[in-house]
Every structure is written in C-alpha cells, then in structure tokens.
C-alpha cells in the first residue's frame, strides 16, 4: 500500500460520463409520468387582472393548470428564502415583479402538450412602471413589494469595521483613490438546467423528489417547511448533476409546482427548464456596485480601506447568505494586505429583476470583494506610479503574522503570499515582460500585464457563524468497511463535476490504508447519506473532507482494538505505520486493514461489537483561506479593441492537495469562467425591464476556441486547523482571475489615460475607450 493522498488518480466517475452512462434528471422516466410547463410574465412589473385557463385546459392531454391563486388557497403561495429575511412567491399572484416570473403551471401527458397549452393560458396584465436600476430603487418613488410591512425598497444595511476610524485615516492619508467598481450581473449557466421529478406515492404518503440539487438535505428540509409534509415522508434524490456553480442551491418555483401537482394528481410530474428559463429566472450572480476608497502614504504603505456597496437583489431577497451575514463574506475585501483601518458597508435594494445573487462560484460575495480590492490596488499603484507588484509586496500580510486578524473580522489561518507571488513572477518572466512592454509602448503598441494576488475565504463554516434556514453549516461523513476490505463512503455533500467519487475515496484510502478503487462513494440520496449542507462555496473539502478524514480515524481507532486482538498484544503496543498496524519493536509483525476488516465480522475483539464503521459530523473551527497569484498578459488591437490574452498563469495555494489532476481541472474550469466574466458575460436589462440575454446567442459561454491556454503551478501552505491541511480550490480561479484580466487590459490602456472600464471588457467597450482617449 502506498500513499493515495496527493496522487493524480484518474477520476473514478469519468468512465460512466464519457461513455454516456451518466444518469441525469432528464434521463429519468417514471411510469405514467406527466410534464409541467410554466407560464412566464412578459412584463417586469404589472398587476395580474385575470388568468383564463379554459383554452389551456381544452388541449388534449392537459390534466391541470395551477395559478398563484390556487396555491394561495392551499397556503403554498410563498417560499421561505434560505436566510429567512424574506420570502418568495411560488407563482405570481396580485403582481408580477420581474420579467419571466412564473405565473402559472400547466401539467399534461406530454412535454409538447404542456408547452402548447402554456401558450394558451391568457393572462391579462396592467403594466406598471418597472424599476431596474438600484440607484432609482433607493429613491422609493415606486414601492415594489406591496406584501411587506416596510414600505421601502431598501432591504438591509450591513456594515463591518470602524467607520469613524477609517474616515479619519482616509482624511489623513497623503494619497487617496476612489473608484466606482461594478461587478455586473452574470449567470453561471450550467450546461444542465434545473429540474425536478416529484413522485407522490398516495399509498405510502411518501414524496420522492428527484432534483438537480447541490444540497439535497437542505432541500428536504425546505420542502417540508413549504409543503408541511413531515420530513420523514420526503425523499430527495439528486442524480448526476451537470454543473451547478451555486445555481442549483435555491428552491425554485418549478420544484414546488411539480410537487403540488404530483400531490394533487398522485402521479409523477417532471419539470425541466429551458435554457431561457434558466438564464431568466434562476439564481444569478453579482450585481454589486462598489465605491472603493484606498488611502496610502506617498511611499505606498496602505493606511485605510472603505467600501460602500449598493447591491441589486432583484424582486426578492433570495440570496443564500447566512443570517448573521446578509452580504455574505464581503468582509474579505481587505484581501492579502495589512490595513490599519477598514470599513465596508452594503445596502441592498429590490428591483424588477429575478432574485438570487448566490451563484457562479462564490455565493457569499467573495468574488466581488476580491475584484474590488485587486482593481483598487492597481489603480492606487498607478496613482503612486509604483509597480503594482511592488505595492502588493510592500503591503502583504507577512508569514509571521498568521493567524492574522483582519480589521473586518476574519482570522486568516495561514498564508505565504510573497513566496507564491515570486514563484508566479519567475515562471511568467515578469521582468522580461515589462521590458518587452516598454519597447512596445515606444512603438505605440498596447500590451498589458495584470496581476492578482487574491485571498479568498471558503469552507462555511463554523456553525457559530453560518447557517442555512437556521441549520448550522457543518458537514458529515459515514464510512462502512465491508468484510473484504472494500467499503462504502457517504457524505452530506453532492458533487456536480468536482470529482468527489475519487477524492473522497483517496482521503479514506489514505487514512485507512485501503485501495480507493475499492471504496464506493455515494452522495445525493437523503435516505442513505448523513445530513449535510451540500456542495457550493468551495466547502466540500474544507468541511466534508475533514469529516471524512475524522470518520476514517474513528474507524481506525476501532480497527486498532481488533488489530491488537489479532496480534495478541495490548492496544498501546500497536501503532499505525506505513498503512498497517504493527507491533511496536517487532519488525514484520503487522496486520493490514483488510485483515482487520475481515476480523471485524469473523473474529471481533472480545470487548468490542462486530462491524467496522463510523460517522462524523464536522463543524469547522474556522474558515480556510486559499490564496494565489495570477498573471495575465494581453495585447490589444488599437483598431478593433480586440484583446488577445497571450498568456495566463495561475499559481494557487489551496493547502494540502488531495488529487493534483482534479485541482488542475478545477482551476482550468474556473479560469475559463473568469475569462467569460471579464470579457463576455453580463445579464443586461433595458429601461423597460427586458432581459436582453436570454439564450446562448446573447449570453456567451467560451469554448476551447476562445479560451486562452492556461498555465498553472502551485505552492502548498497547509491550513493548520483542517485535519489534512486542505483549504479547497473550486472557486479560487473564478475569484482570482477576473481582476487579473481587467488589470492587464487597464495596464495596456494606461498610456492613453484610461483608468477603469467595467466588465465585461467587450471589444466595443475597449474600442470606445481607445477612441475616447485618442479623440
């Protein structure tokens, strides 16, 4: 037996995926199953005057048409949002509050009949003036939510840090910069859209729901709260999931309507949304408008940071942020730097846009924060006429300062920022690139180098701080070792491409000296997996990964008793060494875990119960804080505004690595997403509240043709509080890369006097900036 941790083992799940044997939601067909199609509002803001179902009900095969009034009568008209601050309509009643809001559901024998009949549901609207700009919303000229007692569009004010101290420090700073930095609304657009099959067994009274879910147990609890069905009567199964990125965390109206229909009809009902439905109604990301102020001394030492943010939450506050932190972990905005004073505040507003604000790798506003500070650092460097790398180095939190308490409340676990940055600069050839740039600028060429030295926060979370629906954000693992030494490993997480079937087996294999190939990993079934909070926000390895390691160690402790029995020795004389139990001081006298497993069922120790299994619920003592240095090199065509990302290097430090090949894959995927956010993607609305990006011709997803060729490297700074030292990596490339791209473009345009352009940096925007600067 050799080490399994840190080995680039091929993914156990891939053979079934690449052979087309994955089982996604839409692959599931149940006997007599019906289909649900939803009717959506074309108006972003309108009163519903009437809904006429008659033509739809006359379509052959249609079984039912459900409206908001029907749900109202059944007291199922509202969904609770995860943090409990707000509630969300299932189907609109009274008013529609955003374009494409769900207004009715048609259930029919075929998907086609349901879609055709949905077209025939006649809804009479009285259009109202829409509010699509949060800065207009804050004026309260139109109050969007009639249902709330508070007659204002303001949702919450949240702040952290010391306002007066920060204001004073900024006022006293010899150098100050202030910039409005916008993280525009975007969408994760998973290749598989959301869907559900609700199957109410009227004989047993048990509801089975197949669901595209990143958090099946939380969904079970939410379904129970919404429907009133006891939780033991609800079985959630999350089959293979084709990408999530936070989009598959919330409960969506389609899930509830399919469930209501199945409960009423006693027949399975399937709902699978279209691409347009996915882009227009499900959890978006960002929409943060951040005013960032930095203060510094003339030699570049940071003195203060202040960030004031206006957040556009859409029609309902349906973000999945924990109760205590309505703006999530935005406090990470101090980044990798020492600030003597800092203050951040967020004010959120309703608008006539869909709710969400939780998705696209980093539901907790870490991406927005990292973007703000890393852009601001470059703007400050420009103001100081300093190399942005040297400004960062001057202000890094130093190794000896860890654990480091930031002025905004986080305690960073570990870091070695200088080493990681210097490795990146060396690998990319930073000094040579700067020389090349200087030569090109002499010729008028636009070449830019952008650096991002980000720190992020993942692994939600300590239960004392973070919850969903009041449930502490722990996670769980259960390990059962069979007599032959094979086993089954279950966790409260649910992978959507992260490779848990491999990495979880590697963790348990490492801890128990068993072959990961012999360990079956199972997630996503609430009847069998232990309760967990799910997979999102890079929390799986920091939380469930720790639970797995600690559950395995519990198994090992029991195994030690059995090993002592087999070795006819005292437990104290048995040690776990080189992946087997050995008798101290007696070379060659040892038993393997496989032998122990067999004995656990055939020859257990006299004072222990048979079997070999354990469960662990892990509540982490702190978050983990992965970091990295990313460098982008771009060339810009002056005539067209086209940006060519010539090179991109990502040096990540995510602590101990379970499987470097999977980490590499995670980084490649996240960088491609970051590239898309920086250059391509935005969910835009016109002044009338029309969503202008409702399909893949208008909302662009990069292919291999557009994506740069990624270069990657790693440093390893283990987390001191994680049992394996792991920190998590899924979100790092998405968190760390957009600002590297933007910094590179701004660096290229800096000779023209261009200071900032908001993402996405489309050719048109860049071309206009060049034209504006040279006109």
């Amino acid at each position, binding site marked *: 037996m050799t080490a399994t941790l840190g080995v680039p083992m091929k993914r156990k799940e891939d053979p079934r995926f690449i052979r087309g044997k994955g089982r996604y939601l839409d692959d599931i067909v149940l006997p007599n199953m019906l289909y649900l199609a939803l009717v959506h509002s*074309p108006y972003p803001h309108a009163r519903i005057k009437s809904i006429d179902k008659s033509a739809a009900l006359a379509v052959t095969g249609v079984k039912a048409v459900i409206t908001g009034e029907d749900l109202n009568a059944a007291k199922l008209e509202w969904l609770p949002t995860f943090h409990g601050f707000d509630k969300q309509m299932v189907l609109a009643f009274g008013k529609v509050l955003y*374009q494409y809001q769900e207004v009715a559901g048609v259930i029919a024998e075929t998907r086609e009949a349901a879609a055709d009949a949905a077209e025939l549901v006649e809804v009479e609207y009285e259009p109202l003036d829409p509010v699509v700009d949060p800065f207009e919303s804050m004026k309260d000229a139109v109050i969007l939510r009639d249902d709330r007692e508070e007659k204002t569009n303001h949702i919450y004010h949240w702040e952290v840090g010391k306002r007066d101290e920060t204001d004073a420090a900024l006022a006293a700073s010899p150098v100050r910069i202030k910039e409005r930095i916008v993280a525009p609304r975007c969408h994760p657009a998973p290749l598989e859209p959301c869907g559900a099959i609700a199957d109410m067994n009227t004989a047993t009274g048990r509801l089975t729901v197949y669901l595209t879910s990143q958090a099946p147990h939380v969904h079970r609890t939410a379904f129970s709260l919404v429907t009133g069905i006891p939780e033991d009567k609800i079985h959630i199964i999350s089959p293979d999931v084709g990408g999530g990125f936070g989009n598959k965390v919330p409960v969506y109206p389609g899930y509830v309507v399919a469930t209501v229909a199945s409960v009423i009809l006693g027949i399975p009902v399937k709902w699978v949304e279209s691409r347009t439905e996915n882009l227009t109604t499900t959890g978006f990301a960002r929409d943060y408008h951040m005013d960032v102020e930095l203060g510094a001394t003339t030699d570049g030492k940071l003195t203060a940071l202040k960030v004031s943010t206006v957040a556009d939450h859409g029609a309902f506050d349906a973000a999945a942020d924990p109760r205590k932190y309505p703006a999530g972990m935005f406090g990470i905005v101090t980044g990798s730097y020492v600030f003597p004073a800092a203050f951040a505040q967020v004010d959120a507003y309703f608008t006539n846009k869909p709710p969400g604000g939780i998705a696209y790798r980093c539901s907790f506003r870490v991406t927005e924060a990292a973007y703000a500070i890393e852009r601001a650092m470059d703007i400050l460097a420009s103001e100081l006429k300093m190399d942005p790398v040297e400004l960062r180095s001057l202000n890094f939190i130093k190794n000896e300062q860890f654990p480091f308490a930031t002025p905004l409340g986080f305690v960073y676990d570990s870091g070695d920022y200088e080493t990681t940055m210097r490795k990146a600069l060396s690998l990319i050839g930073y000094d040579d690139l700067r020389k090349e740039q200087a030569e090109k600028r002499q010729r008028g060429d636009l070449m830019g180098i952008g650096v991002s030295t980000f720190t992020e926060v993942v692994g939600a979370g300590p239960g004392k701080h973070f919850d969903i629906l009041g449930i502490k954000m722990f996670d769980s693992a259960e390990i059962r070792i069979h007599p032959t030494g094979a086993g089954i490993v279950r966790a409260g997480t649910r992978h959507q491409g992260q490779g848990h079937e491999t990495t979880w087996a590697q963790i348990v294999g490492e801890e128990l000296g068993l072959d990961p190939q012999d360990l079956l990993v199972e997630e996503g079934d609430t009847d069998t997996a232990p309760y967990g909070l799910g997979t999102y926000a890079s929390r799986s390895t920091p939380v469930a990964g720790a639970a797995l390691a600690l559950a395995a160690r519990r198994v090992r402790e029991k195994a030690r008793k059995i090993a002592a029995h087999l070795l006819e020795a005292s437990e104290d004389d048995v040690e776990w060494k080189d992946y087997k139990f050995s008798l101290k001081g007696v070379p060659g006298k040892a038993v393997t875990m496989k032998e122990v497993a067999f004995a656990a069922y055939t020859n257990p120790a006299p004072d222990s119960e048979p079997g070999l299994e354990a469960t662990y619920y892990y509540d982490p003592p702190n978050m983990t804080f992965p970091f990295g240095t990313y460098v982008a090199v771009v060339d810009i065509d002056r005539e067209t505004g086209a940006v060519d990302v010539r090179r991109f290097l990502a040096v990540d430090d995510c602590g101990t690595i379970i499987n470097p090949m999977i980490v590499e894959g995670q980084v490649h995927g996240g960088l491609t997403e970051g590239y898309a956010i920086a250059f391509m993607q935005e969910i835009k609305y*016109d*002044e*009338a509240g*029309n969503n202008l990006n409702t*399909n893949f*011709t*208008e909302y662009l997803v990069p292919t291999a043709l557009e994506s740069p060729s990624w270069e990657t490297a790693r440093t390893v700074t283990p987390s001191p509080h994680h049992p394996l030292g792991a920190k998590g990596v899924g979100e790092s490339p998405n968190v760390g890369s957009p600002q590297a791209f933007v910094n590179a473009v701004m660096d290229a345009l800096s000779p023209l006097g261009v200071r900032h352009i908001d993402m996405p940096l489309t050719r048109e925007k860049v071309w206009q900036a060049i034209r504006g600067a040279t006109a």
Partner: protein
Amino acid sequence: MNLQFSGNEVISRSKTDVWNFVNDSNSVAPCLPDVIDYQIKDEHHFDATVGVAVGPVRGKFKFKIEIDPQSDGEHVNLNISGGALGSVVDVAADADITGDTTSTALDWNATASVRGPVATVGGRVLQTQAQRIIGATFSNIKTQLSNRTTAS
C-alpha cells in the same frame, strides 16, 4: 424596449378615398404583412393572427387592432397590441393624411414597445424587422388603394 419608426407613402388617390380606406377594418386587415387570419369586430376594430419571424423567435402572433380616426379628418391613430411565445408587442402608430383629389400623402410614425423573447433579439434584428413589418403595412395600403385606382 421602445422602437421608433416613420415613413411616407404617396398614393395616387384622393384624400377622401385614402381616409375612407384607412378607417375601414375590412380594408386595413389584409394589409398586415404575413397575415394568417383575421376577424372583423366592427368598423374600427379587428383581431389578426400574423406570422412573425424575428431571429430565433418564430410563431403566430395574435394582435388586437384599433383604428382611431381623429375628428379633423386628416389624422388617424392605429393601436396594435398582442403577442405570443411569451412576448408582448404594443404599437402606437399615427398617420397624417394630406392631399387633394388626385394625390394623397400618408406620413406615418410608429412607436413599438416590445417585451419578452422578441426584445432579446432586439439589438440585432428587431429594429429592421419591425420597420419592415410596419412599413409593409402602409406600403400594402398604398398598393391596395393603387389597385383600386387601376381597377376603377
């Protein structure tokens, strides 16, 4: 999404003939391009089903049309509202009718308010398509009137 259009047609018919034509549902309804079916409600109101193809959005749109003649005898408003496939289109058109016994000018303006999937494709093809549809309506009015002229 609000779109604005305008156009002009010169018709070799008297102002009275043009005025009478545009104030008659039976005359105007067939002038809608790609009209599949229509039902006349009264002299100034009719419903029409029109085949619409705007980029990837293709289907039968159902419209309610109101002809609203102004008392000055030189101005007529045309209000069109309807939609399909989750889209809503409202068009407010007006035409100034000036001329004499042999020639009449039809100067028209239209504002279209578009919501839903049709609006999504707006930035690319909607302006052109909407201009074509509305322009064709007035062009067809001219053709129909001209044909009557020829026939008479």
